[in-house]
């Protein structure tokens, strides 16, 4: 559910037949939330990868620094997915426990 790769639709913006106004609203909301999520991710990647890959800023971005940034982006997105799976898994386990009167 929370993998970064879920992507986003911008919605068709096509003619609104009767009944698809609702669909339009839903698509718009999904699109906006997905965009906000993507922007947050980009901001985090910028911050973390700049810190890791450009410790001593020079007169230009060196090729080694660029390669590091590229790898770092991949590592961060993978980390996001690992965290997401761990978190969602834990939520699911906790709520299952409660259903059966868990918690001593």
């Amino acid at each position, binding site marked *: 559910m929370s993998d970064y790769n879920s992507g986003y639709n911008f919605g068709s913006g096509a003619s609104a037949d009767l009944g698809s106004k609702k669909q339009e609203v839903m698509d718009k909301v999904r699109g906006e939330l997905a965009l906000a999520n993507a922007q947050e991710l980009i901001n985090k990647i910028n911050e973390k990868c700049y810190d890791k890959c450009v410790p001593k800023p020079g007169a230009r971005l060196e090729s080694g620094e660029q390669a590091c940034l590229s790898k770092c982006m991949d590592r961060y997105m993978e*980390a*996001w997915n690992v965290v997401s799976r761990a*978190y969602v898994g*834990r939520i699911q386990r906790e709520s299952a426990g409660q259903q059966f009167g868990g918690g001593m």
Partner: protein
Amino acid sequence: MSAQDPQMQFSEAEQRELAQFLEAENAKARIQQTVHAMTDSCWDKCIFKINNKTDRNDESCLSNCVERFLDSSLFVVKRLEDMRSSAV
């Protein structure tokens, strides 16, 4: 029961459906926000070198980080409750 402006009004069934939909999307967004915060913190705790792939150690550090964060949150809440109930 037809609205003055059918483009602007949703039927009761549609309103219910939209309310449920928004509720679900909000819950999803809150989860994603938490994932962002935890990834930020756990990245600092777990990732020191940028490698060519995310190895098993990194993965388990990140997983542990999430689980321990949640354990800590539960611990804090429970302790606050204990403090409150004992401070009569």
